[in-house]
């Protein structure tokens, strides 16, 4: 190496040679991308692989910390799963979960999008107001739960009292088996619509100006503008937002814990809550792990399906 003349080492690259003409450009690019992607993957593997393996292994045992030997009892690996299929309470929780998830995700998408559209016009007032609207999402969920518990308690709730004052008395919703779940849905939507609103707003602001100007010049009305210009741009964002709300709705906890405790009876006992009760109140860790594993599998499947449907309109494919 040391005998090479300096002139060769210093040979400059041709000035305007296009990248594409340099051999191995694509591979180099791939390597650059990998450099950006791999650290995140490594971190995720490090912090989720272990717990996930632990979860699956535990679901194959009747683990109950009160009986230490049950941690390695693999005599009946499918036992928990068999019991789950026959468990009426588990099946009920799936149905309740489905109702809650569908209702809240749909409501949050609709309301979030609606508010985002309303607030998107450029005006100082609306800009100021935008920040205020994220307030419900910003409150700690436990505080939200407590506030709504009071709102749903007829004895002390300002809302109930106002309704009674104008002659429309409403009975306690959270003690009514038919209404309790919808009461929770209302509180949940109030708490999380800012998520979809924020996403929709950001997406709206990234829409290029020309298609809109062009459409306006062509005389497009508000509805047509939305349907043919805005919505196609928004759709991928809404799918992602909906997906995230779906995943998070399955983890819903504080509202149910404070408002109804899964009741009346089991009318609001969603699957996650049932898993919590089994794991933390009765320490059936094995059984709780089996429920959690099934939940993750179910959500994964659902996400895969939705992802396929939603990305049908992917632009660069």
């Amino acid at each position, binding site marked *: 190496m040391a005998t090479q003349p300096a002139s060769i080492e210093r040979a400059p690259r041709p000035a305007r040679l296009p990248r594409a003409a340099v051999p191995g450009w694509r591979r180099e690019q791939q390597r650059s991308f990998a450099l950006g992607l791999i650290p995140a993957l490594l971190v995720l593997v490090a912090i989720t692989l272990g717990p996930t393996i632990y979860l699956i292994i535990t679901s194959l045992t009747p683990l109950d910390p009160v009986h230490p030997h049950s941690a390695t009892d693999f005599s009946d690996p499918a036992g928990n799963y068999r019991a789950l299929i026959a468990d009426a309470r588990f099946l009920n929780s799936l149905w309740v979960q489905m109702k809650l998830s569908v209702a809240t995700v749909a409501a949050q998408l609709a309301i979030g999008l609606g508010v985002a559209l309303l607030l998107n016009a450029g005006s100082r007032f609306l800009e100021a107001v935008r920040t205020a609207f994220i307030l419900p999402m910003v409150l700690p969920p436990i505080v939200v739960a407590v506030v709504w518990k009071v709102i749903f308690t007829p004895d002390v709730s300002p809302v109930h009292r106002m309704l009674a004052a104008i002659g429309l008395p409403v009975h306690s919703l959270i003690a009514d088996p038919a209404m309790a779940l919808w009461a929770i849905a209302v509180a949940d939507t109030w708490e999380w619509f800012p998520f979809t609103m924020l996403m929709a707003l950001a997406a709206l602001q990234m829409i290029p100006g020309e298609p809109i100007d062009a459409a306006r010049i062509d005389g497009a009305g508000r509805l047509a503008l939305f349907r043919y210009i805005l919505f196609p741009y928004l759709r991928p964002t809404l799918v992602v937002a909906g997906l995230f709300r779906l995943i998070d709705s399955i983890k819903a906890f504080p509202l149910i814990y404070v408002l109804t405790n899964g009741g009346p009876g089991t009318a609001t006992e969603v699957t996650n809550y049932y898993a919590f009760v089994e794991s933390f109140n*009765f320490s059936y860790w094995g059984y709780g792990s089996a429920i959690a594993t099934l939940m993750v599998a179910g959500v994964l499947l659902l996400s895969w399906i939705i992802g396929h449907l939603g990305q049908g309109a992917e632009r660069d494919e």
Partner: protein
Amino acid sequence: MAVLGRRLRRRQFLQAGAATAGALILPGRAPAQAGSKPLSGITLNIACWSSPYAKLLSDYVPQFQEATGAKVNYETPSFPIYNQRTDVELSTGGSSYDVLNVTFIYIGRWIGAGWFVPLDGYLKDPQKTPADWEPDDFLPGATAAFKNPAGRLYAIPWTADIYMGGAARYDLFEKAGKPMPDTFDELADTMKAVHMKDGVPGFLPENHYGWSFIPFLQGYGGNVFRDPPEDLTPVLDTPEAIAAAEFFAKLLHDYGPDGAISYTYEQVVATLKAGRANYSPNGQIFLVQMGAKDSKVANTCNFSMCPAGPKGRFPGVATHGWGIPTGSKNKDAAWQFITWALSKPLIRQMVAERGYSSITRRSLIDSPEFKGKLTVNGHDIVKIYLDTIELGTRGYMKYRTIYVYPQVDKQIDIAIQNIASGQMSAAQAMRQAQQNSLAELQRAGIKL
């Protein structure tokens, strides 16, 4: 992340090494010299939920540190936080704590699973327990809860919460010509007479029915398990149990406020204090709040024993006590703390200075200083307290010491809610509770 762990572990090794060396070199662990304190160099980690007693005790902990040279980390998180944390800690075999409160709803689980140290050895050892500490001074009804079926003691009670009846608006009772109800029939009768008088609903128990319904269950001659601890077969679908459930749920439905089944114990207390509900069968810790300074019903409240059913009177007794987790590395020092905290001189000092303390020692309850403290609105709670504790010794509270009770507890909650909200009849709901309880016990590996 792995690097972080390695660094920490190395740090821990270094720390452990330094500590060992220090212990060997420094005179702290040497034979007791004049002036050195018995527990110096030891750190005790202690936790209890934030009851008034526990918070009061924290003011006296410096006294203990001063006398023994131990360092004490004393924390009092709120009830749900304490229980959740402690349960995770104990169930994973941790050794972060030396003295812990044994919460009454977890007695069955924590003691039944062997997560606390039996204390009989300490009590019998004159070196560890001074003779004038008088362990027999503690109310037997209170200590009974912390004994396992074989009779070994696992915690020393610092409180016994008794189930009794309280009325926030006794003036409405008087207007209707009714005394405090003593039987279930009288209760139904009185509720009918005072419900919604002056806009106040008549009946409001807390929605933890696995606690507030059981006296009614047993009063009708029913029970939770057939014969705990030997026979753990649930008996929730007997005719007596169904009758009791129907009676209780009817009271709730007919005489409770709107949404009564959603009222937790904190809500019940707040509602009673605001005078927005009248009669509540509940724990004494809650009911005496009606006499507090900020209570609107301080002048109209009254108290009575838990009402009796056709088959007798079975008021619940909920005890909390100090125990030593098996993972503790300083068990002897922990025991010293417990003997100090529940010693007669300290308790008397607390009562004298702050008007309150642990009230599980008979000698304290009999003392003149204390007599006046348990009187609310002119009504003497002490007699109710002692009579109820006495009843508790009959052993009907054994169902609470069974470690699988929480599962059955939840089924009872669900059943009463189903009946009171009109989703099921009493027979249907209790039968479902019975079947689900059987399934739960099976899942817990119990052979019936």
